[in-house]
């Protein structure tokens, strides 16, 4: 029986990914492990009992009692500014999870994989990339990562390092680096036609990011002939965009 309850989680380390995003490493005693793509619910409680909860994807494959999240600070948000600006190592939150058995990648899977990330939607997809590397899987992965500008790239160092069988492409929506061949702008059919897999390869497609981005990308994948049952989506909610 595995009905989930809230577990105390203590922050052990922090890493800034960009000017507005931070990776938080928690220690959660008796953590049962998780699959790449799953998420947790995080609950914050103030000293007078007021509480708020939000969902966050796990950013790295299971590793003992450790749960790693990456959080983007939403201006005027209730929870994300606390996680990215106020929390310090030693502080606690409560975590419920891991949850979600649909938007997951399992290392024993053999289909090619297309990952399409919009902004912070990279987080669960990075967990899949890391799980693939950890498992020594040879399954070919392609990542298309849509982001505002070069400075908003998460995990920049790690994604730059060569990883056999993983192709990474970037789509800049606001400002591209100098000399970048593609003008800045939202994801288009051609981006997915060129940077993804042909539908005939029957790849598993994972699309994650703000609701509008996921909606648009899933429609484009359908238009390219990908079967609906091979397009898995994870919407993070609205954006200020």
């Amino acid at each position, binding site marked *: *029986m*595995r*009905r*989930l309850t809230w577990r105390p989680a203590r922050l052990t380390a922090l890493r800034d990914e960009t000017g507005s995003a931070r990776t938080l490493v928690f220690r959660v005693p008796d953590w049962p492990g998780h699959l790449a793509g799953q998420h947790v619910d995080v609950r914050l409680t103030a000293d007078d009992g007021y509480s708020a909860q939000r969902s966050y994807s796990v950013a790295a494959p299971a590793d003992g009692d450790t749960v790693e999240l990456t959080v983007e600070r939403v201006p005027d948000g209730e929870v994300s500014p606390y996680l990215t600006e106020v929390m310090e190592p030693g502080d606690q939150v409560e975590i419920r999870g891991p949850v*979600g058995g649909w938007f997951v990648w399992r290392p024993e899977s053999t289909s090619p994989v297309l990952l399409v990330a919009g902004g912070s939607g990279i987080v669960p997809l990075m967990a899949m990339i890391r799980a693939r590397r950890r498992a020594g899987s040879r399954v070919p992965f392609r990542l298309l990562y849509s982001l505002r500008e070069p400075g908003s790239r998460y995990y920049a160092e790690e994604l730059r390092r060569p990883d056999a069988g993983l192709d990474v492409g970037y789509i800049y929506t606001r400002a591209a680096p100098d000399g970048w061949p593609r003008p800045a702008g939202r994801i288009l059919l051609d981006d997915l036609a060129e940077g993804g897999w042909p539908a005939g390869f029957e790849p598993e497609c994972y699309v994650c990011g703000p609701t509008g981005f996921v909606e648009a990308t899933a429609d484009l994948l359908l238009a390219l002939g990908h079967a609906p049952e091979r397009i898995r989506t994870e919407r993070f909610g609205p954006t200020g965009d």
Partner: protein
Amino acid sequence: MTAEHLDGNSLAGPLSEIFAVDVTAAVGRCASCGLTGPVAELRVYGPEPGLVARCPGCDEVVLRLVRGPGAAWLDLRGAVSLRVRLPE
């Protein structure tokens, strides 16, 4: 196009308080239009005042979940059935 809903995936946490298995991977049939698919692909509105999951085919309500202090209310009347994968 609406940009207001989340995926059924986001029901996983709230439903995990009630069920011992992951219900979001279960396959259900919409009572209204008959569309079949995983709970994870429903369109979820909320979380407040309650979670409302609608069919991606016809937008009818498939599931509702309200969490109060000390109780949860679950309404599945929009689903004809749920196929939950279980070990032998």
